[in-house]
């Protein structure tokens, strides 16, 4: 069984074991486990071993390779890495080889981490189940007939099945938190601007954030400390000091005010999910937290607002895939227009086309004010709801998703039903605030359930300490899925 990132880094730094041994063990574990899960799109074994060897050499020279010394990490395949492909789960980028590393990949490697492979996702991050992918659907390690969630389903499943101690995902409307919840791991979406998006293939640029997933909040804190911080290559990256998230994990929770909102616990919420979330809140009360009822009046408009904005941004961002500079080009174009249209028509999957068309429509002449501008104004109302709420509370607790992991294929023919499963997560992206998903129990059928904690801008430290102390008092995250207990 693979150890935590914290323990691996400590063991490697103190020469208790070598980074190479850890990498080899991790790769063997992926090899033996991923056949049924399909968490990975690509495994970079040779490169990982070579990188681990460099970490060992640095240690032999008496250098400190950094806080993630020898820690194997999986990276979502919409984040650019040099060596091998970055496909975004799309046929259009099937052969795309990035010529540079994303900011997070640079930061991770500079901290001693070993990137072992790229994980599966809904194409370009567009989906909630990791079914919208040019290759195989990622299965939930807890039940292979269920989805892993999405769009960072591969990253969540790889961590849940103990193939890697930690992974990196991206979250535009819940794409880290919802798969973390479905797979029983911790996932953090930081404040917009906290982590540089340089090298993240853009989907909804005003919403996208990169963040870590791991079994324990402690590891998430460790990774967040490495990847957060200013980067001039992303003009939306915020130049604010990065606190020592690990050092703050045990800060007392006395006096913590947790807001709960009826809008997050009302109609459509599965009773078992409600039960686990309420029990988690009760647990936090015994740790010194108080519960304050709050009201987020525009919450019910979040999905409508989000799907206008995100598709508008997507239609604009994905215009770059034109068959000219990179990606798929149709073999025999009639003319220039046909080259664009056919290359895109052949290269994009169904959901990506739907979203491009929806966004194009919302931005088109005659509809811009009615859809796009209207949604931007509603976004202001949603953002103000949170600003007001955080005047009286330190964090807001809610479910991550209305149900546990749904069945593979259940929602693929009904896009709106799939969109509605994002109801509790997308507001945090619209408001730009931070939010974390923490395992808080299991349904009767043995499917994981997650607690979401949302915090004000740059409140990651508080969320991590609450999550950590909750995990210290509970054992949900120590449960291991059947798909990972075979060896």
């Amino acid at each position, binding site marked *: 069984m693979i150890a935590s990132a914290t323990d691996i880094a400590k063991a490697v730094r103190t020469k208790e074991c070598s980074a190479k041994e850890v990498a080899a063990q991790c790769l063997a574990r992926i090899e033996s486990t991923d056949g049924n899960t399909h968490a990975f799109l690509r495994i970079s074994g040779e490169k990982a071993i070579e990188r681990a060897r460099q970490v060992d050499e640095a240690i032999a020279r008496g250098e400190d390779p950094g806080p993630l010394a020898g820690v194997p990490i999986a990276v979502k395949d919409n984040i650019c890495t040099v060596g091998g492909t970055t496909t975004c789960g799309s046929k259009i980028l099937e052969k*795309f080889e990035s010529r540079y590393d994303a900011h997070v990949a640079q930061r991770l490697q500079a901290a001693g981490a070993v990137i072992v492979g790229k994980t599966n996702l809904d194409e370009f991050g567009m989906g909630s189940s990791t079914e919208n992918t040019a290759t195989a659907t990622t299965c939930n390690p807890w039940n292979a007939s269920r989805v892993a969630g999405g769009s960072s389903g591969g990253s969540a499943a790889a961590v849940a099945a103990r193939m890697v101690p930690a992974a990196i995902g991206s979250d535009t409307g819940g794409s880290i938190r919802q798969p973390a919840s479905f797979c029983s791991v911790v996932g953090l979406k930081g404040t917009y601007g906290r982590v540089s998006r340089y090298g993240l293939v853009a989907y909804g640029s005003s919403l996208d954030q990169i963040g870590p997933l791991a079994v324990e909040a402690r590891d998430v804190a460790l990774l967040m400390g490495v990847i957060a911080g200013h980067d001039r290559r992303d003009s939306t990256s915020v130049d604010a000091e990065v606190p020592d998230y690990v050092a703050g994990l045990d800060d007392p929770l006395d006096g913590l005010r947790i807001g709960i909102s009826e809008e997050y616990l009302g109609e459509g919420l599965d009773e078992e999910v409600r039960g686990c979330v309420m029990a988690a809140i009760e647990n936090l009360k015994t740790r010194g937290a108080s519960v304050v009822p709050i009201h987020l009046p525009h919450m019910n408009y979040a999905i409508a607002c989000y799907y206008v904005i995100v598709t508008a941004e997507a239609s604009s961002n994905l215009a770059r895939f034109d068959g000219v500079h990179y990606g798929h080009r149709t073999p025999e174009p009639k003319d220039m227009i046909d080259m664009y249209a056919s290359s895109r028509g052949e290269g994009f999957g169904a959901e990506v086309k739907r979203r491009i068309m929806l966004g194009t429509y919302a931005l088109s002449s005659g509809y811009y004010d009615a859809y796009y501008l209207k949604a931007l104004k509603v976004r202001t109302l949603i953002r103000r709801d949170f600003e007001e709420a955080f005047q009286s509370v330190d964090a807001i607790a809610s479910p991550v998703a209305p149900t546990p992991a749904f069945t593979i294929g259940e929602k693929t023919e009904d896009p709106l039903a799939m969109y509605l499963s994002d109801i509790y997560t997308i507001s945090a992206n619209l408001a730009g605030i931070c939010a974390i998903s923490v395992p808080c129990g299991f349904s009767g059928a043995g499917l994981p359930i997650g607690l979401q904690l949302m915090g004000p801008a740059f409140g990651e430290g508080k969320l991590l300490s609450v999550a950590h102390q909750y995990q210290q008092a509970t054992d949900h995250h120590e449960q291991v899925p059947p798909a990972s207990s075979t060896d």
Partner: protein
Amino acid sequence: MVSKLDEQAVRHVAHLARLSVTDDEVARYAQQLSRVLTYVEQLNELDTEGVPPTAHALPVSNVLRADELGHPIQQEQALHNAPRQQDGFFRVPKVLDQETA
């Protein structure tokens, strides 16, 4: 607000987005996108008179940097992923002498 996207409108939007679509796709998208648009129209229930739009959640704007010589991507790197190239350029089909609507 027009809620229904008929097949003709789908073809028009697909053209604007430079997406080739099959007849099957047109029929399916007309139905699926109409449902989503109908759902989205609930935004009209809200009075947003005088509410400023939020394009970015945090007040960061006009981020400038010094105009310094950096390390731009080299030509061969820029062309590395090009589907077709010739003499150091991206090669595309002939652009002129055709309708460009």
